[in-house]
Every structure is written in structure tokens, then in C-alpha cells.
């Protein structure tokens, strides 16, 4: 009996270990530090930093699907594009308010997400991959052909983004645009961090691990995945809407296979299933692209390709898993 008591005392209670597992780590605040540093660098960095913030939001939305729910998709660009077009079209028709524009983009993407998700989530693995691939070609072709609505191949012109909260205009040096994008990024990050550390997020990861078992402990697996899919679509739509507002343009490059494949590559380079991977990947990718692609696009493509191949072969966890190695935690 006394033996039992002493072992119980030595052992950390489960609730306490959960607290330490899910606590906010100092390293998680690094992106926030980076966000705060950008304005100190001078206005020349605003465009790149804004693009990183937008892409990171998009990457976070994809990580929710790929990393947490285990749904590999080649068609996530659909939601980015729908968000961009929706807020762009609203703006062309006179609704240029940037904040509500984001909600318009998110809502449009969520609607498309719930419909498409309802259909494609009935399948898994290769078939699911193929259905997302078909969807993305379908949607971008529809955007191409519906010229009266989307401007077709020329893109949507005449997008006018109004002043933020009716006060700050989107100036030429990109300061307002940056601060707006950075704020949205921080909010999305806080929201997603809450979600994945909540019981809901844990249950999504459980489905990723073992859908059959999840069903057997009473989860309605497909509806739950559909919720995640829709949330992810809405966030991707927010990112797209933000892109359209900053660019004052929406076009075929915002939707389609290329952007879908690129964001998947960025995410995987950073590492899936850990939100900071979705931040590191796009940031490193876009900075490297900014430095290298200007000099020689083909060389950039070569190095990028080699980097992807090497990452998959040697660092399957992506860049962010290297941080674990440095901290000596190995794969744990």
C-alpha cells in the first residue's frame, strides 16, 4: 500500500502533463516577433512581408487538412481562388470595405467547401486526391469561361479596396496592407491554435490516426471531417480575399492547380501537423524565391525540386522538425 502511494507521488498526473504538452512555447511567439520587426526594416519590405503573411494564412488552412485531419488534397487553391473572386467581385460592385470583404471571401469559400467536401470526403486516398485534382481543374476552367463574372483570362479589373475601417487607406508603400494582413494572420493563428489544442482538434487527429477506431468510440467521422474541411476552406478563402484586396485584382493565378501544388510544397517544406511548420515553410520559400528566382528562374526551380526531393527522403518532418533535432528531442 505504501509502495503504491510513493509511485503515485512520483508520477506526474495526466492533467498536469497535458498542461505542459499544450502550453504556449516561447518559440511559438517567434512569428509574432517577426511580424513586429518588419515595420522597423523600412517600407521596402512591406510587399514581401505582406505576401508572406497571406501565404502563411493559406498554409495554415491547408495544414489543418493535411497535417491534422490527414486529408491530402491537390485542390486547395479552389478556396483561395473563390475567396479572392468573391471579395473582388463584391468590390467591383461597389462593396470595397476590406474587413467585410474578408468575410465575404470566407463565406463563399465555406459554401464551396461544404458542398465539395460533402462529395469528395466520401472517398479516401488516391480517389480523394484525384477528385480534388479534377475539382481544381474544373473550377479554374469555370472561372476562365465565366468571363462576365470573373473577367476570364484577363482577370477581374476594377477592384477598389476602400479604406480600412473607413480610416486608413491602402497607401502605395504598403504599410496599411501589411498591418492588415499581419493582424489577420495573428487572429487566424490564435484561432487555429485554439482549435487544434481543443478536444475538437484532438479528435480530428484521432481520425487521422485511425478512422475506424474513431467511429468505434462514437465519432461521426465524416461529418466531423466535413466541419474541418469547411473551416479550412473558409480560412483559405480569407487568405484569398486578402490577396485580392491587397492586389486590387483577382485572376486565374489565384485559383487552379499551380497554386494548389505550390502551397502543398511550401507546407511540406515547413512540416505538416504543427502550425509553425505552416509558417516557416511559406516564409522560407517566398524569401528564397525572392532572392533566387530574380537571378535565374530555372536554377531556382532546380534547387527547389532538389530541396523537395531531399526533404522527403531525409527530413520527412520538414524544416520545423529540424528544430526538434537541435533541441535534442529527436522524433518525440
Amino acid at each position: 500500500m505504501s509502495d503504491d502511494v510513493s509511485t503515485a507521488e512520483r508520477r506526474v498526473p495526466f492533467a498536469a502533463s497535458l498542461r505542459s504538452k499544450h502550453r504556449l512555447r516561447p518559440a511559438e511567439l517567434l512569428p509574432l516577433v517577426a511580424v513586429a520587426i518588419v515595420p522597423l526594416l523600412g517600407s521596402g519590405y512591406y510587399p514581401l512581408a505582406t505576401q508572406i503573411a497571406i501565404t502563411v494564412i493559406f498554409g495554415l488552412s491547408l495544414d489543418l487538412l493535411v497535417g491534422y485531419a490527414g486529408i491530402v488534397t491537390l485542390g486547395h487553391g479552389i478556396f483561395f481562388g473563390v475567396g479572392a473572386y468573391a471579395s473582388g467581385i463584391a468590390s467591383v460592385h461597389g462593396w470595397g470595405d476590406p474587413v467585410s470583404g474578408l468575410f465575404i471571401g470566407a463565406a463563399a469559400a465555406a459554401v464551396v467547401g461544404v458542398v465539395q467536401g460533402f462529395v469528395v470526403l466520401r472517398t479516401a486516398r488516391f480517389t480523394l486526391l484525384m477528385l480534388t485534382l479534377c475539382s481544381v481543374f474544373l473550377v479554374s476552367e469555370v472561372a476562365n469561361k465565366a468571363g462576365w463574372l470573373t473577367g476570364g483570362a484577363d482577370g477581374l479589373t476594377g477592384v477598389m479596396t476602400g479604406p480600412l475601417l473607413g480610416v486608413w487607406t491602402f497607401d502605395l508603400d504598403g504599410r496599411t496592407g501589411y498591418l492588415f494582413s499581419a493582424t489577420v494572420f495573428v487572429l487566424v493563428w490564435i484561432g487555429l491554435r485554439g482549435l487544434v489544442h481543443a478536444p475538437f482538434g484532438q479528435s480530428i487527429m484521432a481520425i487521422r490516426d485511425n478512422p475506424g477506431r474513431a467511429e468505434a468510440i462514437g465519432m461521426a467521422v465524416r461529418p466531423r471531417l466535413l466541419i474541418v474541411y469547411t473551416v479550412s476552406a473558409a480560412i483559405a478563402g480569407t487568405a484569398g480575399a486578402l490577396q485580392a484586396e491587397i492586389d486590387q485584382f483577382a485572376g486565374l493565378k489565384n485559383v487552379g492547380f499551380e497554386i494548389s501544388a505550390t502551397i502543398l510544397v511550401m507546407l511540406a517544406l515547413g512540416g505538416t501537423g504543427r502550425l509553425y511548420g505552416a509558417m516557416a515553410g511559406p516564409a522560407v520559400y517566398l524569401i528564397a524565391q525572392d532572392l533566387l528566382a530574380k537571378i535565374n528562374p530555372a536554377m531556382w526551380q532546380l534547387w527547389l525540386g532538389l530541396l523537395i526531393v531531399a526533404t522527403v527522403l531525409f527530413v520527412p518532418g520538414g524544416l520545423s522538425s529540424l528544430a526538434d533535432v537541435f533541441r535534442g528531442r529527436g522524433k518525440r
Partner: protein
Amino acid sequence: MVTLVEIAFQSLAYASVLYLVSVGLSVTLGLMGFVNLAHGIFAMAGGYVVATAISAAGAPWWVMVIAAPVVVALGAAVLERLLYSRLYGRGELDQVLFSIGLIFVAGAVVRLTFGPLPQQLRLPEALLQSLEVGPFSFFLYKLVVVAAGLAVAIGIHLGIERTRLGAMVRAAVENRGMAESIGLDTSRLFTATFALGGALGAVGGILGADVFSLGPTYAFEILVYVQTVVAVAGLGTLRGSFLASLLIATLQTVSAYYLPAFGTIILFSAVFLLLLARPRGLFGRIS
């Protein structure tokens, strides 16, 4: 009537190209469960080897149609041994990424070597004429393409049914564990079929150079068509690929004749609906 025959002929020729570039993937995906989005690089390699050999060394087209696939097959075998084989059994995300990376590398190499513009693959003069049969006119080159497609389809069919290698492939596709337990060397089998798939892809890339033009983005542009054929045919089937190619080619050719503006939309809607109704494809056994 003339138009119908024309459509049927065009469909058949296009189907032959689709079949050749994708049948290898059908086998490797079914056999190893590897989602290889980069299968198109073999077709691209075949096309570039031939185009270069003809324009730089004046090699005869007929010889290169045979020689280039052999070269590509060797390259594919090396690639399989060195890289692909390390990723069998990994999740589809890793496989998808790896093959996207490979497409980037192949595209960049091509662009650095041959420049960004598409390459011309010069065809022999003898084939650039039409064969008149009554009111119908057939482009001789397309007849060769159809003949090659059919020959490969029949060859694979017979090879799978009649030869020892075929029996081994069939056994391994249908039940890998069983095949291994009766002592098949599946890893060598994988390399061999991968190389064969690469060679067939190369033939498709060469014969289809007029349909899918040879540029640095070739592998990305052809990707969705190759994957679509495989998905429609279904995994773990070796005979479904030709019918799937024919189906997709006919759909695209017919819509190109009558509804050219909506060809892409019709194609992908149809494939989407088909995969929903039959997630395993038309003839697939594995989902």
C-alpha cells in the same frame, strides 16, 4: 458520316497516345501503390531524346522510336532503384511531394539545357501524307500512332496472360503478400515493371509530340490527363487503361468538335461524377 469517321479516328489516335503515356503508371501504381505524379517525365524524356537526336545528329526517326525508350527505361530503372524504392510504404503526401519535386527538377534541367521554348520533333517525310480510302482520308502518321497503341495494348495483354513475367506481375498486383510468400523477388519485379512503364511512357511522349508539345512544363501539363486515365481505369487493372484512354479521348475529341468552349468542363465533370459513382474506377479492384 465522314465527320463521324474522322472523330472516331482522331479519338483512336489520341487514345493511343494517352494509353501509352499512362499505362506504365497504371502498373506501378497498382503494383507498388505509389502515387507517382511524375510519370510524365518519362514521356518528356523520350520526346526530348528523339527531338535532339534528329535535329543534332540527323538520326532516323524510325530508329529513335525504338532506341529512345530503351534509354529512358534504363534511366527509369536507375531512378527506381536509387529514389522511388526508398519511398514505398510512405504516406501519399510524401509520394506526391517527392514526385512534384522530381517534376521541378526535370523541368529545370530541360529548361537549362534546351531553353524555355517547345522543341520541334521532326517527323519523317514519308509519314506526312494522307491515305485516301473512298471518301475518307487518314493521316498516315496518325495511323502509325494507332497501330503502335494497339500493338502495345495487345502485346501487354498477351504478355500478361502468356508469359512468366506477366504471371508474376499479375500475381504481385493482385496480392503482393501472397506473391512474396511464394518466393517472388518483388523488388526486382518492381524495377523491371517500372522501367517498362517508363519505356512505354517514352513511346507515348515521342508519338504524341504533336498533341502534347515538348516544353519544360510538359510533365505538369500532361499530369492531370495521365492521372485521370489511371483513376478512371482503376488501380490494379492492366486491361482497363486502354478503355479508359479511349473513353477520355472520345469525350475530348467529340466535345472539341461540337462544344469546343466547354471541352475541359465536360471532361472533368464527367471524370468527377464517374469517380464518385465508382471510387475504384471502371475496372479497379483496389481503392
